[in-house]
């Protein structure tokens, strides 16, 4: 049979391996960020949840201003404020059960504190007496990650391990819009989807990576659209709407816990302050953009809703503020004490057992410190 004769028999067929693994349609985010506050559905929001979110957002903002003040007093090496993003921070913490794990990025101190970690221990990294101040196991919070996006694969691995062990634990990992450009973001999302790991990725798109605006970071319709490329659902939410963020995250957590796999959530928000206290935001953005966002303030959005529904009166507002003030006062007071510093700690945790060379170096520093001490004591001044 020649090739010509064969032709009649030939039926074009899709290449054998071809079968779409998932229907892409349900993975795509909505065209507009999901919102609750200020819309008709707000009325359905649970009053108790609204109150909790509100109290935490107020505390969160106060935490930010207090920490920023501490940088001015030299009590913190640096502080990246999340003012304007408190709704995301708080909703992330509140969407999780105690057994779940949070993987924060360096800006997410509020989420860490809202999860129950001691506010002072949370600041250890930024005060500079040690790298990480809290025990990650106590509240199931990974260390604040400075190298961007690198904590995302950790979240995937932990969630996967929990699932392998039969625990219904979910991991929620936080990253910024800038962080989505890193290769680790891609690899983490892909692993999560392939493994159907119970992870929720929360991207806080606050418009900037230090000075670089989103338009120089991505050309995607939205960051949530990246989800379809991994085969997971992408959700777009108004990041200043604490109720909406909470709902979307809680849904995703529920889905993950039930074995439904990972979700990518993009929360559209804005960084109201400079990148850190050391940054000068006027070099790269206009005041009127900041002002526009000030009119969409996450705290105000909540306060309006609560008051409109009669869930909050001036007295309740005062009580919440006082609680926040008390937290700030406690923070101030404890941060104004010098941290306990022992240089010898440097050698203790490099390995389970210090190597011989570390023991030598420890001894050297010991001798130096003893000599310093002697000098000071011998010093007549």
């Amino acid at each position, binding site marked *: 049979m020649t090739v010509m004769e064969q032709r009649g028999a030939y039926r074009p067929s899709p290449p054998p391996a071809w079968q779409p693994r998932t229907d892409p349609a349900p993975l795509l985010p909505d065209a507009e960020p999901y919102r609750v506050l200020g819309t008709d559905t707000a009325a359905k929001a649970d009053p108790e949840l609204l109150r909790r979110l509100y109290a935490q957002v107020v505390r969160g903002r106060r935490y930010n201003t207090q920490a920023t003040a501490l940088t001015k007093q030299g009590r913190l090496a640096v502080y990246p404020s999340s003012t304007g993003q408190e709704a995301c921070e708080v909703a992330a913490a509140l969407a999780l059960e105690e057994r779940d794990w949070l993987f924060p990025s360096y800006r997410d101190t509020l989420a860490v504190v809202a999860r129950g970690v001691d506010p002072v221990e949370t600041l250890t990294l930024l005060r500079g007496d040690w790298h990480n101040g809290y025990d990650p196991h106590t509240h199931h919070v*990974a260390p604040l990650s400075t190298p961007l996006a690198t904590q*995302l*694969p*950790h979240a*995937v*691995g932990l969630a996967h391990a929990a699932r392998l062990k039969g625990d219904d634990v979910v991991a929620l990992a936080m990253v910024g819009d800038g962080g989505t450009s890193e290769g680790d973001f891609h690899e983490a999302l892909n692993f999560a989807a392939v493994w159907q790991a119970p992870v929720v990725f929360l991207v806080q798109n606050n418009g900037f990576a230090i000075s670089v605006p989103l338009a120089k970071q991505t050309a995607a319709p939205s960051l949530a659209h990246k989800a379809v490329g991994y085969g997971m659902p992408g959700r777009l939410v108004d990041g200043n709407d604490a109720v909406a963020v909470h709902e979307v995250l809680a849904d995703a957590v529920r889905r993950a816990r039930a074995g439904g796999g990972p979700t990518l959530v993009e929360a559209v928000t804005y960084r109201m302050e400079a990148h850190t206290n050391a940054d000068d935001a006027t070099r790269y953005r206009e005041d009127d953009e900041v002002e526009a966002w000030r009119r969409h303030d996450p705290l105000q959005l909540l306060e309006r809703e609560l008051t409109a529904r009669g869930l909050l009166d001036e007295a309740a507002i005062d009580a919440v503020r006082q609680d926040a003030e008390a937290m700030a006062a406690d923070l101030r007071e404890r941060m104004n004490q010098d941290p306990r510093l022992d240089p010898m*700690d440097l050698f203790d945790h490099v390995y389970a057992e210090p*190597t*011989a*060379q570390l023991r030598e170096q420890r001894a050297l520093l010991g001798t130096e410190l003893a000599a310093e001490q002697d000098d000071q004591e011998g010093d007549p001044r």
Partner: protein
Amino acid sequence: MTTVAVKPATMAQALTRAMRDAMAADPAVHVMGEDVGTLGGVFRVTDGLAAEFGEDRCTDTPLAEAGILGAAVGMAMYGLRPVVEMQFDAFAYPAFEQLISHVSRMRNRTRGRMPLPITVRVPYGGGIGGVEHHSDSSEAYYMATPGLHVVTPATVADAYGLLRQAIASDDPVVFLEPKRLYWSKDAWNADHPTEVEPIGRAVVRRPGTSATLITYGPSLPVCMEAAEAARAEGWDLEVVDLRSLVPFDDETVCASVRRTGRAVVVHESTGFGGPGGEIAARITERCFHHLEAPVLRVAGFDLPYPPPMLERHHLPGVDRVLDAVARLQWEAEN
């Protein structure tokens, strides 16, 4: 007491057996990497593990080294003991960030609260006719990174023993497997594996009196052969196998050099900025007045690993070792 028939086994087989026994002994041990499951690894070192323990314990991951190691970090955080295979030395580089910024530092960062018992297996070195990027010796990078143990076996018994120790260690271990020794054989009984010295201890593989050859991994057989050949020249060479670059066993190394008064460090990695500099410097600091000659180094040339047809010129061989021994200022002694 039973007498056991001791048949020759390859280093690759001993490594496989080490993982198998570790997995059987501890359900927390998970093997993961590219092609480690169904295929059993491109060097077949994980052969049979997926079949015996299932794909959840020996997992073919997506093709992304940072993702593999990063996921292993999270798994270790949750109490597992991941054993990660990097397919080749140069393909571990994409995972460098995870290794340096997280794996090596997590214990220290958290004051010991979050140790990471991860073993990163890296087939390394040349001599197997591999094309570009398949023959790197990357130990200098790992050595310069505090928080990592850097271990490399040179014998079949050590392959098993050190890998078991590495997997059992609560610290992260970069476990460097000399590719060209994968098929090296030795009498070794898988059911009664020889006990080996702990990680951190160097071993004198051949006692001698004239000078000390200090080496590890793929260069051990070269040094043993050189020591044999040196007898013809009237030199009785001692050969020290480091077994781990971190921790470094100053004691054993310096005891030998103090005895012999002369030393040559031999490795395949490039010389400049390679492990030999550190080793020579440490010895000199500690044994200066025992040295009859400077500690010399025989190493790969300071160039990207050559194409396979030229690699024999690059790799330190017996002759180059003997030439270095000859330069140890023997006249000065008399």
